[in-house]
């Protein structure tokens, strides 16, 4: 193939997916931009943002890929209500991996910032935020991936091409939204317990 043809084809094929995740990324940015009070209140939170967003993408991208492989092999029935054992195991593993990676990120961020002598919120607050955000966004993303991939498959779409853009778009938006919810929840719990935040 000629260079020009290759370039045009690659450009045309990538543009819609990139456009969709651009919209998701901008919406996530609006949430982050509206979180300035929380970012000031929980020092070290901004340091966690890339790790938490990437964890959503890595974990649920892999969950979606497993799901679509299962569908292609005929091992998974494309109905949410089927309560397939294989799907349930994959969803549980994704949630557990996501929570573990989020907690590790929070603990590491706390120790690195402490070592650097940078101001940082208390360890329970950072871990609390990471866990609540991981749990809520995990449940939401599992539901979205299941519903969209199954519905797309039943309508004859290739789930492989749905998973990537779907996870990058919704992962950023849900990741940021539930991070905001988690920070507010953690701060009010910490306030209630009379601990520092």
């Amino acid at each position, binding site marked *: 193939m000629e260079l020009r*043809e290759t370039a045009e084809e690659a450009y045309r094929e990538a543009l819609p*997916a*990139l456009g969709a995740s651009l919209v998701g990324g901008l919406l996530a940015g609006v949430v982050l*931009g509206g979180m300035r009070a929380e970012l000031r209140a929980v020092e070290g939170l901004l340091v966690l943002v890339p790790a938490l967003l990437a964890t959503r*993408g890595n974990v649920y991208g892999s969950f979606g890929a497993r799901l679509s492989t299962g569908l292609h092999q005929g091992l998974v029935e494309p109905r949410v209500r089927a309560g397939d054992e294989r799907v349930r195991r994959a969803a549980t593993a994704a949630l557990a991996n996501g929570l573990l990676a989020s907690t590790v990120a929070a603990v590491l961020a706390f120790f690195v910032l402490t070592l650097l002598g940078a101001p940082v919120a208390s360890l329970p607050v950072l871990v609390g935020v990471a866990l609540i955000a991981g749990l809520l966004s995990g449940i939401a993303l599992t539901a979205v991936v299941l519903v969209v991939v199954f519905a797309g498959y039943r309508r004859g779409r290739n789930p492989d091409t749905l998973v990537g853009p779907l996870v990058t778009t919704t992962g950023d938006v849900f990741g940021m939204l539930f991070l905001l919810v988690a920070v507010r929840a953690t701060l009010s719990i910490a306030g209630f317990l009379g601990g520092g935040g």
Partner: protein
Amino acid sequence: MLPVLLALTVVELGSGLVLGAFEERLLRAPSLLVLVPVTIGTAGNLGSILAARLSTAFHLGTLSFDPTDDELAGNAVATVALAVTLFPVIGLGAWTLASLVGETTLGPGTVLVVALSAGVTLAVLAVAVTLVATYAAYRLSLDPDDVVIPVVTNVCDVLGVLVLFGAVLVFT
């Protein structure tokens, strides 16, 4: 899955620390804060799409590691062209959204220049990282599908923050 996931988490913390280092500047300019997730995400996406295409070409045997190879050069050109198309939209979109939900401290032109210069730099870096990672996977006899895509996506995430930081320092 888990060891890779944890290694990638450590890499992403690196980019978080860079973000933390210019937190005050970002908090003062909300439109720059809006740019953060979309710049990181688009950089990672450009890298992962290129990596997926090169992996497939590699498996099909149509790819050779030669700068005059049409498959290689065409995909590289497309990556840069996509960045030139998308990042002005990202810059103006970030400024518009930031000004709709609150006050902005920077002009739309500044945010556009920050986004476009960061985007084009990132596209060139994404091409370089993807080529190096795909070539390394080939030399080490690893399947590029398994290794290259997660590595490229997360390295591009980190570069996204670094390049954005550089663009903010230069233009604001």
